[in-house]
């Protein structure tokens, strides 16, 4: 049962990714991306990393994608980029996709000797995660708050540039 569910979500994530390449309307692409993210959240939950699954749903699907959907709703649907899907790099891009995909698939296929740990590693321990997080990584946590502050200031600066009309 576990294996069937895992394959189901893997196939759902892959299908969402392929749909992102072929769908025309950005809103539908956003919905496909949300489907990919929800499938990944389900995979994280199946791996036993529930904290990451909750983060994935709360930060990515809730915050980031809602922001993106609002940005799409602000756009003009008669824009040529909404009706023509692909740029002039379609054929070189697909050739690169085939080459890079083959190289990476070869690497993954021969990775069983170099993977760390055992396939059935221990379950994720939330208590150990919290202790490690606040004992060892507190500085990085504080630095992310500085980064978010910088992002807010930058967003306000972009807004001001737009208002001045010289952006």
């Amino acid at each position: 049962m576990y294996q069937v569910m895992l394959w189901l979500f893997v196939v759902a994530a892959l299908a969402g990714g392929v749909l992102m390449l072929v769908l025309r309307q950005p809103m539908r692409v956003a919905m496909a991306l949300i489907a990919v993210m929800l499938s990944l959240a389900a995979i994280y939950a199946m791996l036993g990393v529930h904290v990451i699954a909750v983060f994935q749903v709360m930060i990515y699907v809730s915050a980031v994608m809602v922001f993106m959907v609002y940005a799409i709703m602000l756009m003009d649907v008669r824009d040529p980029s909404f009706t023509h899907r692909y740029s002039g790099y379609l054929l070189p891009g697909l050739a690169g996709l085939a080459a890079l995909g083959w190289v990476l698939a070869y690497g993954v296929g021969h990775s069983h000797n170099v993977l760390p740990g055992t396939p059935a590693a221990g379950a994720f321990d939330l208590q150990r995660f919290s202790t490690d997080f606040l004992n060892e990584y507190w500085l990085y946590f504080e630095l992310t708050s500085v980064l978010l502050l910088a992002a807010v200031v930058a967003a306000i600066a972009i807004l001001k540039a737009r208002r001045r009309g010289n952006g």
Partner: protein
Amino acid sequence: MDNTQLLLALSTALFVIGLTGVIIRRNLLVMLMCMELMLNGVVLSVVTLSQRAASTTGAVLVFLVFVVAAAEIAIAVPIVLLLARRKHTLDADAFTDLKG
């Protein structure tokens, strides 16, 4: 193929699909979403390998990556809106003068 290899293969596929989307799609917002897909693929590989190694470091790293991704999108979407306001289009080909 065990589950780790399956999930690594999925993360590879998501990364390659996202990179292809950035190259071949025309709309700037769609390109931005494909970049998010690439980031999701990399995060999946980090989570899979850290879970296999029974390490908490990967989970901490993923938490920090999520915060950076939120900050990135908070900056990138206003920049895209600014570009769209300037040229009245989201077509990436309209911004070739940015090459310098």
